[in-house]
């Protein structure tokens, strides 16, 4: 009786799930330490109410954007710890020595590393940037649905917590690689809760990404300022639009693919099993139908960032603007059609492999349009080499390298040699770190003053670029070579002594990368301490071209006192040229109220996911009902906005000008 009650409430959870290994104890202590510190600080400084009212329940995309970047920064750190553990193991584990990690533990680490970096670090940073920049660039005050925006953010947070919960309950994460390929991830081969954590974490955060994608598409299509035709949109907005279109297309596929795996594991169906007529290869197809376009979700926004930066720091309009846009659209289209290049070796046959190999190579055409646009924008421009521009130059060198490696991988015959080798690992790290992440760093440097009112220290910024670039090549060039020497990915042990020196060099590279990251932290700290010195009172520190620079820094919560009218591309530049910037008139502004429903619904989703991991079906059902109730209550709430009268706006503006 007691026992069946326990199963009903607690499912599979029991004492043995609590931490008892060094890394789970360490993780639990670290996580609870962080939590307690935050709680103590908030209580000591009496900031709970402020946090809840001003931040957690906020519907202001600028606030949400900053929260995204903070959480994603933490996850970047978390993912980097995993990377460090992988690197150390690989530099030690030769011959007699087996390093300091067990095989299964090593597998969990590289799985967590990949998922955290893609879903929670990079995606989070990008969602943050989009929130901060897009409404300002299109002359809007908000997103199409403020509720979907906070909900998307909180689902992302829910997923991020869920992926770390295994430290405290269960002690194991999935040991199946970041995409949990079947049949390995099926119950038969992975009976523990690790894969279930993987499933529910990605399901919860994936839903968040989908909402965010839908919201940005609607915002960009429906909420542009009068006069801003599609071909007058800033490049970053275009890139966000393309990225959102891909998200909307592929995240439903991810959701349903994971759902089918879930059914296999929970209800004994046979989608991807090796028995019962299941087809594991179908999973590989479906997951890469999501997976390949996803890498372009990551890189497209950075393409947009580079276009903005190159134009601003060359003090010229984007050259070949239309080609630039066609380039983005071309990348978007091709990205969705070439997934099979991730499994040429599966044996689909020469014709299929050739078709997908060739279509993959076509990606160079739109990419070349983008590069042509950037080069011609710089050509005869008055280039100012500020640190965002250095990030761009660093990107050009890494990305060309990684792109060429990708072209090689896309030849099926060549790919048979280097598939799943460290050459592949080097390729995609070059693209994601040297492409997407450098773009994000560039963006943060570039737009930082817009949201804080002061610039970042330039000297430290330039050091950071230099360290990242050097560290990057030191860390990843050896991997290209190791790949050619036959080292496959995900090795926790090897016997060939000639590999070790290269692994060692790679570790040194990692250390240099760490100093780069520390320099960036230092840069932020120094800039905050000396913020008077870096203050920018104009709101336009770089002599910018697009509408976000027409607002004061930091941007007021209503963004614009009146919605600007757009007559050309680079609308703000045009206004400056014709001297139209001084005019100001005030109007009533409709502002969305803050809402806790994003948190409530996401919390229910989090509880649901956690309960499902442990087969606590009663609690899962309760959580589901709670989420539904929240949705219903919120849908029928008619009082979600208030009007900020023009007189009040005037008051606020006067107060700001006086300060």
């Amino acid at each position, binding site marked *: 009786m007691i026992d069946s009650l326990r199963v009903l409430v607690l499912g599979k959870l029991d004492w043995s799930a609590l931490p008892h290994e060094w890394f789970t104890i360490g993780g639990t202590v670290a996580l609870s330490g962080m939590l307690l510190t935050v709680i103590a600080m908030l209580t000591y400084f009496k900031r709970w109410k402020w946090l809840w009212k001003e931040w957690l329940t906020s519907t202001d995309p600028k606030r949400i954007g900053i929260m995204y970047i903070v959480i994603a920064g933490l996850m970047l750190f978390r993912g980097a710890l995993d990377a460090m553990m992988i690197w150390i193991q690989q530099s030690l584990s030769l011959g007699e020595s087996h390093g300091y990690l067990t095989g299964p533990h090593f597998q969990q680490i590289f799985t967590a590393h990949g998922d955290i970096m893609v879903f929670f670090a990079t995606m989070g940073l990008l969602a943050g940037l989009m929130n901060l920049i897009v409404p300002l660039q299109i002359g809007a005050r908000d997103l199409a649905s403020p509720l979907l925006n906070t909900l998307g953010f909180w689902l992302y947070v829910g997923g991020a917590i869920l992926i770390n919960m295994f430290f405290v309950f269960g002690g194991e994460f999935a040991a199946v690689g970041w995409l949990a390929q079947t049949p390995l991830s099926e119950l038969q081969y992975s009976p523990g809760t690790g894969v279930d954590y993987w499933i529910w974490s990605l399901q919860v955060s994936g839903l968040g990404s989908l909402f965010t994608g*839908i919201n940005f598409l609607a915002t960009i299509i429906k909420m542009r300022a009068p006069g801003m035709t599609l071909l007058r949109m800033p490049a970053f907005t275009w890139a966000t639009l393309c990225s959102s279109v891909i998200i909307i297309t592929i*995240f439903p*596929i991810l*959701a349903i693919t994971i759902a089918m795996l879930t059914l296999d594991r929970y209800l004994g169906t046979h*989608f991807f099993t090796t028995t019962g007529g*299941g087809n594991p290869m179908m999973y590989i197809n*479906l997951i890469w139908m999501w997976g390949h376009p996803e890498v372009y979700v990551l890189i497209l926004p950075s393409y947009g960032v580079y276009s903005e930066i190159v134009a601003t720091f060359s003090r010229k309009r984007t050259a070949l603007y239309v080609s630039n846009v066609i380039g983005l659209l071309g990348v978007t289209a091709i990205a969705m059609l070439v997934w099979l290049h991730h499994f040429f070796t599966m044996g689909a046959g020469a014709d299929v492999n050739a078709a997908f190999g060739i279509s993959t190579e076509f990606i160079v055409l739109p990419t070349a349009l983008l590069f042509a646009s950037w080069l011609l924008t710089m050509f005869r421009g008055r280039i100012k080499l500020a640190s965002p521009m250095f990030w761009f130059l660093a990107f050009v060198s890494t990305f060309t390298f990684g792109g060429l490696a990708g072209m090689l991988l896309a030849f099926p015959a060549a790919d048979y040699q280097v598939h799943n080798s460290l050459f592949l690992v080097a390729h995609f790290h070059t693209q994601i770190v040297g492409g997407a992440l450098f773009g994000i760093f560039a963006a943060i440097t570039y737009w930082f003053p817009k949201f804080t009112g002061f610039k970042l220290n330039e000297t430290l910024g330039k050091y950071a670029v230099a360290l990242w670039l050097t560290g990057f090549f030191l860390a990843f060039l050896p991997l290209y070579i190791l790949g050619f020497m036959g080292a496959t990915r995900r090795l926790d042990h090897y016997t060939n002594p000639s590999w070790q020196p290269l692994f060692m060099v790679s570790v040194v590279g990692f250390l240099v990368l760490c100093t780069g990251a520390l320099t960036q932290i230092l840069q932020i700290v120094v800039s905050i301490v000396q913020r008077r010195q870096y203050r920018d009172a104009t709101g336009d520190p770089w002599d910018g071209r697009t509408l976000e620079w027409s607002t004061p820094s930091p941007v007021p919560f209503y963004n614009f006192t009146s919605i600007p009218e757009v007559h050309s591309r680079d609308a703000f530049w045009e206004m400056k040229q014709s001297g139209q910037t001084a005019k100001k008139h005030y109007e*009533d502004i409709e502002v969305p109220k803050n809402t806790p429903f994003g948190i409530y619904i996401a919390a229910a989703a989090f509880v649901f996911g956690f309960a499902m991991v442990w087969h606590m079906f009663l609690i899962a059902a309760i959580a589901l009902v709670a989420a539904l109730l929240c949705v219903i209550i919120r849908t029928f709430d008619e009082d979600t906005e208030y009007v900020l009268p023009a007189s009040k706006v005037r008051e606020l503006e006067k107060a700001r000008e006086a300060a």
Partner: protein
Amino acid sequence: MTATLVEVHRAEEKARKTYFLFWVYLMTDLLMFAGLFAAFAVLRSNSFSGPTEKDIYQLPLVLAETFILLISSYTAGLAVYSANKGRLKTAQVLLYTTGVLGLSFLTLELTEFSHLISDGNGPSRSAFLSSYFSLVGTHGLHITVGLLWLVILLIFLAKRGLSESMIRKVTLFSMFWHFLDIVWIFIFSIVYLMGVSL
């Protein structure tokens, strides 16, 4: 308080945004169904010495389901029309009809499922049955959600009458319902009709 021109304009703007968001959501849902259809197409012949498609489909029953759903879609459409004309009573009756029809559809489907399961042909019997149950069942789950939505909609219609925002909600529901109808047409032709003729 009479609505000013600006307010009317804002309300229209909001409606357009909401419809657009909902359209995009429907498209994503469609893509999710596409994944299920793809899985079904791959696995439909993997009956693993269990029953094949021909063995289990009962076309007359499915045809009845189809007509019931089509008619319910029609009544949902008429409900939107009446709501826009301000005819609260008619809209309510039509929505009730939609609900009853939806419920009958669901009952028929669940009867079909429970027969299969009690014969030992549940979703874990073979890959074919896994994909069949998931595809048709996901549609059924959507119908269930739709019915739940309908109940809540009717409660609030009785309470609040045909306000601007209630009309919008009726329209959204009807879009959802039509969408499910379209998906069902695909299920009917690709699963059932092709299944018995292939």
